[in-house]
């Protein structure tokens, strides 16, 4: 897989095999915290260490709806981009490619971060887990989830480098 800048307004993700394509397509679902209190709590963390603070109550009422909207909007943008994956002509084995508008990179960074945080919260990954060796040959759903976290991190790093110029 290669991620590069096409021009000032677009970047290219090329050489995406079937396995990586499925990982890409799994980003929006991975970012959904549904069914996991730990994941929801991580996405909507408290703005105060004091459980009785006025700020906590105000935050829930006034700020969380804005954050929900921001996070949902990032997922929506990524979902729309993902629908534009197309097969690379003549590639054997089959590969896909995608053009991402540079103006969507913030949404991608946000959505990938949501996905990584939600997966990590669901599986209770610790710093030790995250620094441990991982393999593409996942032996269990937990191994696969760890691989997902690292792959989405690799995408984030690539996008950040391109944003940096």
């Amino acid at each position, binding site marked *: 897989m290669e991620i590069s800048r096409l021009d000032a307004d677009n970047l290219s993700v090329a050489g995406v095999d079937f396995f990586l394509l499925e990982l890409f397509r799994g980003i929006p679902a991975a970012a959904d915290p549904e069914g996991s209190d730990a994941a929801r709590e991580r996405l909507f963390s408290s*703005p105060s*260490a004091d459980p009785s603070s006025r700020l906590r109550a105000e935050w829930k009422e006034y700020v969380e709806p804005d954050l929900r909207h921001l996070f949902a909007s990032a997922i929506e943008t990524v979902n729309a981009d993902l629908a534009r994956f197309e097969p690379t002509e003549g590639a054997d084995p089959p590969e896909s490619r995608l053009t991402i508008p540079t103006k969507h990179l913030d949404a991608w*960074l946000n959505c990938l971060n949501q996905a990584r*945080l939600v997966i990590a919260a669901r599986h209770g990954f*610790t710093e030790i887990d995250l620094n441990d060796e991982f393999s593409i040959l996942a032996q269990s759903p937990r191994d696969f989830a760890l691989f997902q976290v690292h792959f989405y991190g690799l995408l984030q790093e690539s996008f950040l480098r391109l944003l940096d110029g």
Partner: protein
Amino acid sequence: MPETVVEKQTRTKEAAETPWNVVVHNDPVNLMSYVTMVFQRVFGFSRERAAKHMLEVHHSGRSIVWSGVRELGEHYVQQLHGYLLLATLEKSD
């Protein structure tokens, strides 16, 4: 009675003037490069200053990234949460 009123007013003024800290806490999932970028964007830090705070978060578990009036602190915490960083607003000691 007037003395009590004066004391209350003084306390209120002191509370309003007490600086608030925006504290960012470590989260091993967030990439170091991502956290550095967020500090640059939210606070306008140079890359060096942003990286210094990022490393403090990474090594010490937390870093005070900004101090000042409460309202602006709340605004910064909201922005940091928008980037999914673990950030809290704390009254300065």
